């Protein structure tokens, strides 16, 4: 055992002497590993970043909010089973709130109706299109998970009266009122005048698809006056205890059936959705991206490994006589095997650590230049790349090192 430790120490000493003596060659070989490790770790950070991005997006939907709609989220194959359902009406939300109040120990807090449509917002010469305009109740304040940059939400009185007031997202305020307050200004949503009473703080976008900062919120009554409610709406239901989401969902199904007076045996004519449904859809995509990304970047690491193998073969060839001498002096096969393995692993480890620090600075740089880009460095990357480097070193150094350990000392000593 002691002997093994002395041999290992000696092997490391020789390995680093060897690397120092062949700086250029070692550097070029390590470069292959560096590129491989940078590619793999960058992909790792990107995957983590995407994951975080997804999670953030899902959190925007709210993990304590259930969505009642006509359609289930995600792909529907049997569309004919859904198309005939009655549309969700704002009145359904009022009925639901009555049912909740009626239910002792209800897991459901409140229901908020949401009607929406795409509009164009205008103020003077400034214009912004693709604005998602929602009509909702004053209760919306209780399910909104964003802060106000300035102003406030409309109150119950304004909501019931259908006052033409609205809260706008950050991007709309930026577009229409660059560098000044939007409060008290009159904007036109598809030609209908509305007074801005609040501006939301920046929220970001959902998976880059739906921009939360490009929405306008107004009382449902004024929405109805301006755009009508024929298109149907959605109801958002806040859950009291998000750890009991499944039970809450079951309760909501019952409550909705009661609100709509569905008969026993009749199929639900609505769907309850939550962020879990989207997560279930996103996970395979996420995994697909991860697999494909790691496979492609893994190829570059594989090329690096071939470089290590090649250089170890060269090293064994060059030092055949030294191997003979060592064997003559009493080196066992294991000793020679370890010596060359350690050399290969050392180059890989150096490459891995250089690659890792490159990744670290790249991630910092990317984070500084594109703050929105989902990229994240983590301590687990350090462990992963060290382990990957060692594995690559052992895998690529093994064949040449094995060959070296099996050399006949007589032949090796005679080699010039």
């Amino acid at each position: 055992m002691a002997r093994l430790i002395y041999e290992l120490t000696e092997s490391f000493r020789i390995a680093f002497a060897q690397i120092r003596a062949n700086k250029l060659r070692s550097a070029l070989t390590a470069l292959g590993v560096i590129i491989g490790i940078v590619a793999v770790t960058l992909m790792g950070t990107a995957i983590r970043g995407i994951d975080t991005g997804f999670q953030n997006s899902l959190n925007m939907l709210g993990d304590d909010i259930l969505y009642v709609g006509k359609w289930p989220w995600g792909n529907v194959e049997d569309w004919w089973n859904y198309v005939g359902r009655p549309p969700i009406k704002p009145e359904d939300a009022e009925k639901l709130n009555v049912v909740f109040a009626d239910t002792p120990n209800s897991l459901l807090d409140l229901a908020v109706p949401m009607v929406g449509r795409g509009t164009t917002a205008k103020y003077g010469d400034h214009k912004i299109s693709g604005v998602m305009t929602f009509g909702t109740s004053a209760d919306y304040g209780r399910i909104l998970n964003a802060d106000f940059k300035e102003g406030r939400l409309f109150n119950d009185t304004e909501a019931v009266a259908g006052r033409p007031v609205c809260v706008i997202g950050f991007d709309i305020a930026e577009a229409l009122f660059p560098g000044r307050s939007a409060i008290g200004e009159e904007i036109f949503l598809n030609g209908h005048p509305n007074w801005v009473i609040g501006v939301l703080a920046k929220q970001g976008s959902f998976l880059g698809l739906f921009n939360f900062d490009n929405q306008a919120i107004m009382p449902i009554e004024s929405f109805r006056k301006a755009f009508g409610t024929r298109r149907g709406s959605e109801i958002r239901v806040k859950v009291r205890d998000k750890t009991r989401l499944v039970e809450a969902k079951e309760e909501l199904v019952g409550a909705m059936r009661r609100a709509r007076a569905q008969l026993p045996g009749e199929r639900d004519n609505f769907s309850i959705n939550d962020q879990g449904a989207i997560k279930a859809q996103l996970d395979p995509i996420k995994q697909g991206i991860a697999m494909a990304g790691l496979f492609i970047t893994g190829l570059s690491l594989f090329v690096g490994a071939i470089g290590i193998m090649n250089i170890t073969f060269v090293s064994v060839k060059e030092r055949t006589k030294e191997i003979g001498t060592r064997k003559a002096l009493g080196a066992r096969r294991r000793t020679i095997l370890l010596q060359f393995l350690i050399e290969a692993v050392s180059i890989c480890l150096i490459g891995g650590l250089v690659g890792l620090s490159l990744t670290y600075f790249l991630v910092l740089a990317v984070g500084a230049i594109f703050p929105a880009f989902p990229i994240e460095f983590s301590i687990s990357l350090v462990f992963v790349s060290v382990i990957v480097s060692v594995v690559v070193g052992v895998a690529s150094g093994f064949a040449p090192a094995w060959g070296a350990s099996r050399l006949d000392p007589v032949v090796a000593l005679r080699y010039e």
Partner: protein
Amino acid sequence: MSSTIAPATAGRVTRPAGPLVIDIADVSKLYKMGTEIIHALRGVTVEIRRNEYLAIMGPSGSGKSTLMNMLGCLDTPTAGRYEFNGKNVAHMADDELADIRNREIGFVFQTFNLLPRSTALANVELPLIYAGLPASARRERAEQSLTSVGLGERMSHKPNELSGGQRQRVAIARALVNNPSIILADEPTGNLDSKTGVEIMALFEQLYEQGNTIIVVTHEEDIARHARRIVRLRDGLIESDGPAL
């Protein structure tokens, strides 16, 4: 180039031979070279005792190198008996042979075979690493060994900072460091000028007188004459075996 090395047979000490170290009986060795089979050794019998100073001679192709590899436990015989200090080494596995070489045999090569990037001290320590000695003991013994060959002042020099004679002294120190049963020198003066060669042979003489067992393989009569006994090979057979005159 060795013509200036004077035969020093007169007045020199011959130590009484000790117990049997190497017992080789009827050893033969066959090599396959493509389709041809070469009989490098055709039944060689030789006994070597402790405190002997022996030269193995022969022209190239005589089987001299094969016998040396055999004696050095670098190679095993195709047939015949080989016992080293009473242990049968004829059929040992690679790693067992490596241990025998490490403990029992000190090699001195024609081309010195020092590790180029290691200091003299590190080179001499190498066999002790394989013997499993801790660093402090290694250092102490390597320093002792280097001092005994007159290199006490050059221990931290690398081979390319040493002269040929000094390099060979490092190699001899390395051969001595594990207190081996035999020192096996293969043309030890072959890469040295004659003056340095004389110095190295004087060192061997001194080591012999201190009680080491030395086997020198050479094709030079002048070198062989330093030994007390000369074994001559020809065509894979022992031609003669007797005291050096």
